[in-house]
């Protein structure tokens, strides 16, 4: 149980734009254990999605992993060739669910064709299901769809993606991701485009599948509510750096980094009715103009001279509670806002 499934070490991702080089991810290190759900939160443009794409090695052409290691089952993914990635990792060992299911499904093929195709060419799937040779691939696809809660899958499997609603498409995506029962699932904002009721269903579905098959999940979202519902451990990213990482409970009950605190305080619905919401002044700095020292210092209410000069180290403040702030521990306990 304690074995690390995925370990990311000192990962640096850079985007090249003309002559400018922008660091989207700066020295990211973390690991995921088997059966664990790790939530990644942060504002837009902080590098959450780049992290997911970097692990799958699907970064756009302008993006490059310039440093670091991604160890999956003790194998460095960055050393694998493109063919090896396709044959052994993508969709087999690591699967990904994207934000917009409409863009991730092929509009000119039925769900059946798309699912059966994956099964036919997925070696991991075939190894897992050697004893089921006598059941047709279509029946197995129907079975998977039923497991994700799609209503009458026998009928719907011959439909095209446009005939499904947003929530249903996301279920199809999840069913596809689970075809090979991947040890690691990367979910990049899978519920952002959905209604709260559907969102609750999808979250329950992912949690059920995780409990059943003991998969690990890397859950990326900007919605802290969702992150707190689903994650065992949470990582907060700001401007390409991890600023805080802790167990879900201790992070939300006792956030130590000023950025995490500010994010939690600005959520509506936790404070008194109609009261003014605390906000974070300014916005996320553009990646080519990161401030010196701690990158959060221009927006930080607790800023001191030292924050403008030196970069904070990532230290373990309490057991398993890591924070990157020069003033850690000196902020005092947060006044409870709910």
């Amino acid at each position, binding site marked *: 149980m304690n074995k690390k499934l995925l370990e990311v070490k000192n990962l640096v991702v850079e985007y090249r734009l003309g002559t400018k080089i922008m660091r989207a991810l700066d020295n990211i290190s973390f690991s995921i254990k088997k059966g664990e759900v790790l939530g990644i939160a942060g*504002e837009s443009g902080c590098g959450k999605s780049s992290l997911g794409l970097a692990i799958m090695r699907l970064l756009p052409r302008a993006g490059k992993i310039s440093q670091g290691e991604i160890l999956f089952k003790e194998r460095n993914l960055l050393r694998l060739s493109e063919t090896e990635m396709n044959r052994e990792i993508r969709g087999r060992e690591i699967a990904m669910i994207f934000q917009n299911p409409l863009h991730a499904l092929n509009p000119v093929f039925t769900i059946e064709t798309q699912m059966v195709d994956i099964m036919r060419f997925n070696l991991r799937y075939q190894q897992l299901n050697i004893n089921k040779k006598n059941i047709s691939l279509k029946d197995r696809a129907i079975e998977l769809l039923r497991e994700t809660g799609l209503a009458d899958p026998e009928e719907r499997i011959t439909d095209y993606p446009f005939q499904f609603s947003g929530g249903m498409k996301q279920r199809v995506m999840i069913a596809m991701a689970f075809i090979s029962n991947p040890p690691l699932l990367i979910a990049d904002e899978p519920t952002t485009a959905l209604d709260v009721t559907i969102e609750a269903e999808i979250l329950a579905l992912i949690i059920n599948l995780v409990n059943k098959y003991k998969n690990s999940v890397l859950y990326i979202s900007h919605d802290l509510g969702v992150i707190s519902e689903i994650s065992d451990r949470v990582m907060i990213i700001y401007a390409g750096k991890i600023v805080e990482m802790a167990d879900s409970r201790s992070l939300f009950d006792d956030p130590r980094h000023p950025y995490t605190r500010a994010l939690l305080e600005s959520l509506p*619905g936790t404070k008194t009715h109609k009261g003014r919401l605390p906000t974070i002044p300014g916005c996320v700095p553009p990646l080519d103009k990161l401030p010196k020292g701690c990158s959060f210092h221009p927006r930080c209410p607790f800023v001191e001279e030292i924050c403008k000069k030196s970069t904070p180290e990532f230290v373990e403040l309490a057991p398993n509670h890591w924070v990157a702030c020069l003033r850690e521990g000196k902020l005092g306990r947060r006044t409870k806002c709910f």
Partner: protein
Amino acid sequence: MFLVKVQGLKTYFYKGKGILSKLFGKGLRIVHAVDDISFTIGKGETFGLVGESGCGKTTAGSSLLRLVEPVEGQIFFEGKEVLKMNEREIRKFRQKVQIIFQDPVTCLDPRIIAGEIIAEPFRIHSSKITKREIEDKVIQLLEWVNLSPEDAYKYPHEFSGGQVRRIGLARALALHPKFIVADEPTSGLDVSTAAMILNLMQDLQEKFNLTYLWISHNLNVVKHVCDKIAVMYLGKIVELGKTQDVCGNLLHPYSQALFSAIPTINFKNKRKKIILKGEVPSPINLPIGCRFGSRCKYNMLICSQEEPDLIDMGGGHLVACHLLVKR
């Protein structure tokens, strides 16, 4: 005193009016987008309209401004009936009533600078105004929404998500409206940016004594800003009341499920989620009886026979559910 009063408003869309449908004999199908809703909004109040996508919230909002023509019902604004107004009166009415559209980027012309976008309402509605006056007004509007005067010369694509919303807000404020329909004003924004927009809209409300119709699917936001909430399901209001009453004592099974689904960061308060089965039925072939019946766990015989009416459960807390009728 109420500012807006809506009575029995119905807005339908007709599908299959075209030549192709007639040729292939599909016949006329009616989409019941808004089906008989009534509510009143008091002066200076914020009225929240919540529900899942496709329940008719946005259509209700645009029907109020007659951007979509309702088929039946009455809308009163300051005592005058909106649906009986002629072209001229409508123009006057639209100076007092403004809308902030859902998608801020698509409702701003990408080839016009922000200053021109904000100046447009003056050009349309007030003919006796000099260039100089418009300029001053635009600068003042930009100040009100916390943008700088230099921003007037930028194009929409140069702004961030939060700033684009501010421009939409400045344009809506230009003619000193009394009533603003805000359609999802914070969706798609980061939490801290959303908080800034919420604060700004509340400040402006105080400053100009504005009345808002707040359409949103984000229940946390609605809970935070609204005085009254109406929960819509498939074109109908199923629960309506003061925010404290509704949030403190959810009565309709649909509202209970909807509010239980809100993700929360508060570990002490984690509620058991009510997961709804199935999907929202089609607004073309409406189910007989209660519209929520097929997904409701308390489904009774009467639910598939009669449609429940909105009943006052005390203190203006209206609920439409057969469960709550005393027999």
